[in-house]
């Protein structure tokens, strides 16, 4: 009996196994569910683009006019600043010294000017007046002597020589009195106007120099040019800050109340774009976070697409049209520099290229 049914039994077993293998082999592959749903267009017809978030002021790369070692950084990233707030400062000891030197020079010049302005010195006048009185007294004496001698009128009693001597003495005393008077007058007249002018000019120069030194000193402190938010701080105390346009800006500042999205559209799709079309931006990683965008403008210059490979020698053959849209930053947890998937509404009839 066993022998009789052995083969059919084996066959049944074999077939069942084969069927099992068929089922085991045809198990559908488990689909990995996406971590986050890829972003989807809300419009029936849309142009898709990659958008980079930037502040509405565009991102301001703060530079320094003065190269030097950074002495202090006054802000941290994310801090809101108002126009004129100090952001960071360059070591300014030299400039400080310069300011002080220039200030001293200014003081000297001003002192000199003040001295000129203060002339005549009051104490000198009594001396001069005394000298005038002395000269006048001497004059009066000489006058008297001469007159007396003249009245003698006897040529024998008075020698001509004596008389002329008296005459000259009188003349000398007169001159001395005049000189003393003139001296007094000079003294009383104070500083000479031209001297004063020179001194004034000197003082002004010194003042300007001092001012310049102060400005230079002030320039060592870099200040916020607008009200905004510090987006990035790439400068630290002790580092050397270069002037000029840097690849890595020292501080990036921007206005973030309204943000802009700079959307790259493939040049092949550019013709489909209608300026002013509504658009929607999705946050990468969570397409449920999306916002309506407000059209700002089209950048009319088509630019080469920034490539991800970063190889400077590569040949770029893709160009993109950039469109700016704005949105209210309070509505979305997005940050400047973040990439967003943007869908711009297109006219449905425009999807086929017209040949």
């Amino acid at each position, binding site marked *: 009996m066993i022998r009789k049914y052995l083969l059919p039994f084996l*066959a049944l077993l074999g077939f069942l196994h*084969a069927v*099992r293998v068929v089922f085991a*082999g045809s198990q559908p592959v488990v689909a*990995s569910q*996406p971590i986050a749903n890829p972003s989807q267009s809300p419009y029936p*017809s849309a142009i898709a683009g990659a958008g980079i978030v930037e502040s509405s002021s565009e991102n301001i790369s703060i530079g320094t006019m003065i190269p030097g070692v950074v002495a202090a950084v006054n802000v941290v990233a994310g801090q809101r600043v108002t126009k004129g707030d100090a952001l960071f400062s360059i070591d300014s000891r030299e400039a400080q010294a310069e300011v002080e030197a220039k200030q001293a020079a200014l003081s000297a010049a001003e002192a000199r000017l003040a001295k000129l302005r203060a002339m005549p010195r009051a104490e000198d006048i009594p001396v001069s007046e005394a000298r005038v009185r002395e000269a006048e007294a001497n004059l009066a004496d000489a006058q008297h002597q001469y007159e007396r001698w003249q009245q003698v009128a006897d040529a024998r009693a008075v020698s001509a020589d004596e008389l002329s001597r008296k005459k000259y003495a009188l003349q000398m005393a007169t001159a001395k009195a005049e000189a003393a008077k003139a001296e007094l007058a000079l003294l009383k007249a104070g500083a000479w106007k031209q001297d004063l002018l020179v001194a004034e000019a000197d003082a002004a120069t010194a003042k300007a120099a001092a001012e310049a030194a102060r400005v230079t000193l002030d320039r060592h402190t870099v200040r916020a040019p607008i009200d905004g938010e510090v987006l990035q701080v790439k400068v630290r105390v002790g580092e050397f800050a270069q002037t000029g346009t840097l690849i890595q800006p020292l501080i990036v500042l921007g206005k973030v109340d309204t943000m802009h999205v700079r959307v790259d559209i493939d040049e*092949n799709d550019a013709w489909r774009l209608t300026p002013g079309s509504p658009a929607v931006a999705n946050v990468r990683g969570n397409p449920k976070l999306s916002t309506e965008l407000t059209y700002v403008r089209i950048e009319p210059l088509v630019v080469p697409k920034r490539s991800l490979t970063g190889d400077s020698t590569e040949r770029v*053959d893709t160009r993109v049209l950039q469109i700016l849209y704005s949105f209210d930053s309070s509505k979305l947890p997005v940050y400047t520099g973040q990439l967003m998937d943007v*869908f711009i509404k297109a006219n449905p009839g425009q999807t086929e290229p017209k040949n």
Partner: protein
Amino acid sequence: MIRIALKMLVGDRPKYIGMILGVMFSSFVITQQSSIFTGIMTRTFGFINDSPLPDVWVMDPKVQYIDDIKPLQDTQLLRVRGVDGVEWATPLYKGLLKARLSNGVFQNCNVIGLDDASLVGGPGNMIKGKLEDLRRADGVIVDIVGAQGRLAKILPDGSRQTLDIGDTLELNDRRAIVVGIASISRTFQSQPVIYTTYSRAMNFAPRERKLLSFVLVKAKPGVAISDLARNIQSQTGLKAVTAEEFKHMTVMYFLKYTGIPINFGIGVLLGFLVGTAIVGQIFHNFTLDNLRYFGALKAMGASNGTLLRMIIVQAIVVGLIGYGIGVGAASMFYHVSKKSELAFRMPAELLIVSATAVTVICVIAAIFSIRKVFKLEPAIVFKS
């Protein structure tokens, strides 16, 4: 009379077993060879199978099959996204990169770069770790076969240690950390498969102008997938095919440009021919042996119809048993394939194909016998 027929068949043990062996051999060879062939062909599009999410695959117009990578510009992704009816589109990088193992050996690996945000196209069957872990810095996910095999660490004593989470690899001189192990379909070239994010794959890949291998597209609900593929094709000038079409395309490429189908076709044909020859011969012999019994039965009043039924039952029994054992034996290779590089896939169609082949064999064998019996004159019973 059916039972008589069965007893006649089973009673002649050597021929009975011989015929069953013949049918078994045929169905075994046909099923096993076809299964391996199907397995190999399935491997060619294993990657497409592993990514069931996208409806449409977009690629360069000149791409012929899945491993034929002709990269696109990155902006093509955006253009595809802009096509009507596209629910979403994600980029995919696929390329062969050299991995340097801890012992200094270089191993070519299939590196897959998934869309950073959604990780669409990732492996569905994670053995260790989570797909999300790919977001960790330098993270990669390695397939289990690669982790146990070609990418395994060679210890100083020469033994292999399976690559595990936390181990590092060097991909094109860049560091990569294993954050997960996945089980995926084997690929045709059997290279280890390494999953990572698209942007990281850009770093691993040698610098090229274009690196986007495929754009994976999901159709909006209600949009016909084939229409969408056609739309994408006409609007972007790229090739857009449905997943099924892509599989078909890949298989057709291998069928057309490799010798695989011919080799296996010959194997299957040989199995069929040898089976037919053996079974036909033995069955014919069996009928000849029993001819005088059939004559006696005919004389005793058995009609041709009865005799036909008897022979058919005998053929069916031989066919069923041989077929059952044959496909059973062939299906044992499934277990072998689980533990080795053997490609093996046995869809239900194959069981039907080998059943058909066995039927044909038995019909051919039976036809010879039936002719003989039908032509038989019962008068032979009186001949000594």
